[in-house]
């Protein structure tokens, strides 16, 4: 039996796939570890493992720094975060379309200290980036700022 799909059609499909704008999928990396001191772990799919400079981070990762440790991450929209000692950050939701720069970035600082510089997601859509602490909700309109969360509020 002959193939149902003609050769030109296959070429067309290949061309469309090659030209399709790259949208962020749920299993795509959303950022990369750029700095690290001490002991830093990531909890992914219920399993905690060490994470090192150059490693990627993914949506739903939970990053934890031990006392005296720190980590810096740059994300796909050029936003940046760094976590201070004895801190915990959950990367709850990250979606980013690099062509339109539309996206959403929600994270939770469960305890400790965090420095943030917003990126293209917020530049395109102010307040499309949120950070939750146990006590408060932050809506980011575009800036560099620091947060401390108690962890027991």
């Amino acid at each position, binding site marked *: 039996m002959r193939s149902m799909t003609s050769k030109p059609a296959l070429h067309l499909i290949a061309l469309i796939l090659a*030209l399709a704008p790259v949208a962020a999928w749920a299993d795509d990396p959303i950022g990369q570890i*750029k700095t690290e001191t001490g002991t830093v772990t990531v909890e992914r799919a219920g399993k905690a493992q060490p994470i090192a400079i150059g490693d990627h981070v993914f949506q739903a990762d939970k990053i934890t720094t031990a006392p005296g440790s720190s980590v810096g991450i740059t994300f796909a929209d050029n936003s*940046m975060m760094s*976590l201070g000692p004895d801190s915990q950050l959950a990367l709850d939701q990250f979606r980013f379309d690099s*062509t339109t720069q539309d996206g959403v970035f929600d994270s939770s600082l469960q305890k400790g200290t965090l420095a943030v510089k917003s990126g293209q997601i917020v530049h395109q859509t102010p307040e499309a980036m949120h950070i939750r602490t146990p*006590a408060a909700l*932050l809506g980011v*309109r575009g800036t560099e700022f620091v947060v401390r969360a*108690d962890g027991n509020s």
Partner: protein
Amino acid sequence: MTFLLKHLVPLLAVALLAGCASNDLVVVLPAADGHIGGVVVQHGDNKILLDKPYAAAGADAKPVAVDAKDVDQIFGATLAARPIPPMHYTLYFRPDSNEMAPDSQAAFEAVFTEIARRKASEIVVTGHTDTMGTLDYNDKLSLARAKSVSKLFTDRGLAPSSVIAVGRGERELLVQTKDQVPEPRNRRVEITVR
């Protein structure tokens, strides 16, 4: 009633105070480019916009006084862990070719110097077009150009997984024009090292 006043009310007051005595803090930092969009802090019905350098609020979204010294003391280790900010370069090409304009060759080389300075890096190659053609066509055209320029970097030894091609089409014009205007300065590729 006396029991309530004597025991429960003080207990409640302590509980409320403990809630307010949270260590939570948000502080806006001075921006390198001077532009601060700000952060909105929300706690229940309380809401505050922090949009000045060192504007700060506690967990209850009430303003608190904080200066540079406080920030350094509380957040010094956190700020020291910030990644090196992304660096941007623009490459121009001879019309309808993958041959770089002479000025752009230096920028191309500078990208490699910047990568060498970083412990872990990715580069984003972003194609831009002018306003000739449709938005959709230009999204595709700019991505095709970005992919062909990405090859220049992987040919020079960068890992393909560290080179990200992006097409922005006519969405980010360097020189503002009306629709359907040919403008060589808008036909460019921007390289971000991050």
